[in-house]
């Protein structure tokens, strides 16, 4: 039981945060209440596109307990700004993308079902909801644009956005790619859709705005993955309150998966309304509201062509995608189908020519933004579906065709034709381990056994790559990002020798309170219980860019690593003085400052105490032992791996079941294997959900057909198999921990693996996601 003793880097430490979650002691936004608190209910559009002609609030205002009915016009009159899109994408012709104004509360037109255009404030939540229903709004319904594939030929939604085109974006060499395709020995062509998903973190979004008239201070408690970014946007762009008078607290947050990155109307409205009515204002989404008004994910229509030479080497990949951005550009909506998608199309392969064109279009649907994987699952789906299809067309073993084309360890650093430089990897190592785990050689036998039971069995691969650890700030800003993508960390060593760690990386399931404590306790040689990790409060943590893109440990963890270096360096100076040695002679080992080649040493706690009670102390050194660091990564990190799915199809019912799933991932060094495996499980579950179950569907009028758990098929315990996960390791070369990030890989690799397995089982090259029993049954029966 070495594990029970070892709590540092590499140990499967049981999570510190679990103590409160398993006893009901978690503190989520809806668990927080303030004296005098009132409640918000939003007025939401029943139409996909309509002009607001008149809002009659008289009846609602006459109801008991109603304080106010506030509209988008009121908000605009108070001078609040629009919700900005944080990433400016440059078009093919060099011009800026076309960004339609996005007022937090609509005031002239509404552009998707569920879009908020006003808010009712009342003494209780039921009273607020009841009053919202009593508000009479006259709309003139307008023609709605729903189908992204036809958006460019439809009526313009926004004035000044011609053809509903936000941008026409390209990456790679078009001519060279087309030339290589024209001379290829074989070209595989594939049309794909990447289905719209609705994130569905189990905790619905919530916000509580508090305003103190005497001090002018605002506090916003909200379900955010990045409270500092929320504060920055709300002060700099929306201008709800100046940054130094606004504190944003994201307490325990019940899952995010991207959907809680973005700055939404509702949190803007409660903080504004709290000032208007001079009472704390609380809003908690009902699940129906989450379906309508959380940013959705994916929603691509793609045509792809892969050229191969006579030996089966990839010579060119050409991809054309229409990405549905929804009614407005959400916070990071523009970057997901461009910089997080097109750049990943090299995958694990040495394809020399790649060209991608993306048309980002507006439709009268909820805004689409980052959802677990964000662009990288879409890229992986294109690459791994077309590679598998090419293997079938050429009669090649799909694993071996991939192996033939893989970038090899000797090729790193490897510059792709789509703007990334992979630092390290060993893709064959993951492939080989996955093939062994699944028992690839035994598959024909398993397939034959299934056939005897009326079940068709297939096997499918996905060898994915992702770019994580977002991102070098200068590069990101040059590509249009509105903020840097570093992270901050602070370590305060307390006088008694225990440690408080402050990080900008919010934790909402990832287990930072444990892994970050492992990193810090490992550096200082102190017990993990002597390290407390604080996150999620702009009043306590200096700054932060937040948690998304599997960046927390690679960027936020590295910031703490740097801060720890500074602590140790200062500790050496203090220890040197106390031990009458030169600082250059002091080593820090196993929690002790030691004079090299001597038996003289001081413990970490002794030095900490001396820093705060500085009697025997260097004259030229400040007291205290507290250090900050900002870490700006030198490159993205590149987790990669092989996922293999085996799927069985019941010929009678069309039900497809994932019967085995193997994931072998290279995340670089692993701090906590237990947590890493858990992250893979969750991602794979979401990916299987995308492949077989989940679909956000709008009808032709723009009404959401999948607006509840009765209609939107969330993966349940009995829908999923056990997962078999393992890792290989090539440490990241450019961050001090050698880590790459693990939280999205499962959702990136699994949809392609499952669909490759399903199409293998069915003997067809394509069936669209989600492959519901109806679709599978039709494919089986040629309908």
């Amino acid at each position, binding site marked *: 039981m070495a594990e029970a003793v070892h709590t540092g880097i590499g140990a499967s430490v049981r*999570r510190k945060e679990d103590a409160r*979650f398993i006893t009901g002691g978690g503190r989520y936004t809806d668990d927080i209440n303030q004296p005098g608190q009132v409640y918000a209910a939003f007025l939401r559009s029943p139409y996909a596109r309509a002009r607001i002609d008149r809002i009659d609030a008289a009846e609602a205002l006459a109801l008991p307990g109603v304080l106010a009915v506030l509209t988008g016009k009121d908000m605009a009159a108070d001078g609040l700004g629009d919700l900005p899109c944080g990433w400016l994408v440059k078009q093919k012709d060099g011009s800026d993308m076309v960004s339609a104004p996005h007022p937090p509360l609509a005031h002239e037109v509404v552009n998707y079902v569920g879009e908020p255009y006003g808010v009712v404030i009342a003494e209780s939540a039921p009273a607020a909801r009841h009053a919202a229903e009593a508000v009479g709004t006259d709309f003139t319904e307008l023609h709605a644009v729903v189908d992204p594939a036809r958006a460019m030929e439809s009526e313009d939604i926004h004035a000044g956005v011609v053809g509903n085109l936000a941008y026409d974006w390209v990456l790679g060499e078009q001519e060279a790619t087309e030339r290589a395709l024209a001379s290829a020995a074989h070209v595989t062509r594939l049309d794909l859709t990447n289905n719209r998903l609705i994130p569905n973190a189990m905790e619905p979004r919530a916000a509580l705005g508090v305003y103190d008239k005497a001090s002018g201070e605002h506090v916003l408690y909200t379900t955010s993955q990045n409270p500092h970014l929320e504060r920055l946007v709300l002060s700099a762009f929306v201008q709800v309150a100046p940054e130094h008078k606004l504190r944003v607290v994201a307490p325990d947050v019940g899952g995010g998966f991207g959907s809680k990155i973005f700055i939404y109307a509702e949190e803007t409205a409660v903080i504004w309304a709290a000032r208007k009515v001079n009472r704390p204002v609380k809003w908690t989404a009902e699940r129906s509201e989450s379906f309508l008004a959380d940013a959705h994910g994916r929603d691509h229509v793609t045509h792809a062509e892969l050229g191969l030479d006579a030996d089966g080497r990839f010579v060119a990949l050409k991809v054309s995608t229409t990405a549905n951005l929804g009614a407005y550009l959400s916070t990071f909506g523009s970057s997901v189908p461009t910089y997080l998608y097109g750049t990943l199309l090299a995958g694990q392969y040495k394809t020399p020519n790649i060209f991608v064109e993306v048309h980002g279009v507006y439709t009268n649907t909820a805004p689409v933004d980052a959802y677990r994987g964000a662009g990288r699952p879409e890229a992986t789906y294109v690459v791994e579906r077309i590679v598998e299809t090419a293997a079938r067309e050429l009669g090649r073993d799909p694993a071996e065709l991939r192996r033939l084309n893989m970038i090899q360890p000797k090729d790193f650093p490897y510059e792709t034709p789509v703007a990334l430089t992979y630092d390290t990897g060993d893709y064959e190592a993951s492939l080989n381990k996955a093939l062994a785990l699944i028992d690839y050689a035994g598959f024909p036998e398993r397939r034959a056994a299934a056939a005897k039971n009326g079940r068709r069995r297939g096997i499918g691969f996905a060898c994915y790559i992702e770019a994580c650890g977002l991102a070098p700030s200068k590069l990101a800003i040059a590509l249009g990002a509105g903020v840097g993508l570093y992270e901050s960390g602070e370590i305060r060593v307390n006088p008694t020798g225990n440690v408080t760690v402050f990080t900008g990386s919010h934790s909402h399931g990832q287990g930072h309170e444990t892994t970050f404590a492992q990193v810090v306790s490992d550096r200082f040689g102190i017990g993990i219980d002597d390290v407390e990790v604080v996150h999620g409060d702009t009043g306590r943590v200096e700054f932060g860019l937040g948690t998304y893109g599997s960046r927390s440990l690679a960027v936020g963890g590295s910031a703490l690593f740097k801060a720890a270096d500074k602590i140790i360096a200062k500790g050496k100076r203090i220890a040197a003085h106390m031990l009458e040695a030169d600082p250059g002679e002091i080593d820090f080992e196993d929690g002790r400052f030691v004079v090299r080649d001597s038996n003289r040493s001081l413990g970490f706690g002794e030095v900490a105490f001396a820093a705060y009670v500085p009697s025997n102390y260097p004259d030229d050194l400040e007291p205290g032992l507290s250090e900050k660091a900002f870490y700006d990564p030198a490159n993205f990190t590149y987790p990669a791996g092989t996922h293999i799915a085996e799927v069985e199809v019941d010929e009678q019912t069309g039900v497809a079941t994932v019967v085995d799933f193997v994931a072998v991932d290279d995340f670089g060094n692993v701090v906590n294997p237990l947590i890493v495996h858990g992250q893979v499980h969750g991602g794979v579950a979401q990916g299987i959900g995308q492949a077989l179950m989940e679909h956000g569907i709008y009808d032709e009028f723009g009404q959401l057909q999948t607006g509840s758990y009765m209609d939107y098929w969330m993966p349940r315990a009995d829908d999923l198999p056990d997962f078999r996960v393992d890792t290989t390791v090539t440490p990241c070369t450019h961050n001090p921990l050698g880590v790459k990030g693990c939280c999205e890989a499962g959702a990136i690799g699994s949809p392609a693996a499952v669909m490759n397995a399903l199409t293998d089982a069915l003997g067809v090259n394509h069936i669209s996601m989600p492959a519901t029993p109806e679709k599978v049954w039709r494919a089986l029966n040629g309908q």
Partner: protein
Amino acid sequence: MKLKLTVNGTPHDIDVPPNTLLVDVIREHLHLTGTHVGCDTSQCGACTVHLDGRAVKSCTVLAGQADGAAVTTIEGIGAADDLHPMQAAFREHHALQCGFCTPGMIMAAIDLVRQHDHLDRRAVREGLEGNLCRCTGYHNIVDAVIAAAPQLAKGVGRG
């Protein structure tokens, strides 16, 4: 309407409108915020509590239906220094991430294990299909329930 409820062993006299849901009494009146609300269609199970020993979705029970009954919530089965075997198993097997579905999942799992002698992994999956988790993919939840089951079967253990 006036009600008598015993919650986590403590008797309460409660006066609420007749359309009040049990979950609202638990969260809003008794401030036991460990029980969560994750949906509005009784599909997610985050609000699962025990009503006279059996798991119910407390968003689907009117407070009036629980008059005179004993309610146990996540706060009533163990404490940080004295965990219920199911709580301990969830921690040991990393069966939770964001923690939002966890209280309901634990309450549902306890009832499931009490009702069945020999649960295999498939039976655990089917038994918990009324509780949604978006984080874990359920694998580790199944591990935890299988591990805790022998300690809870047929009256062994508490709660």
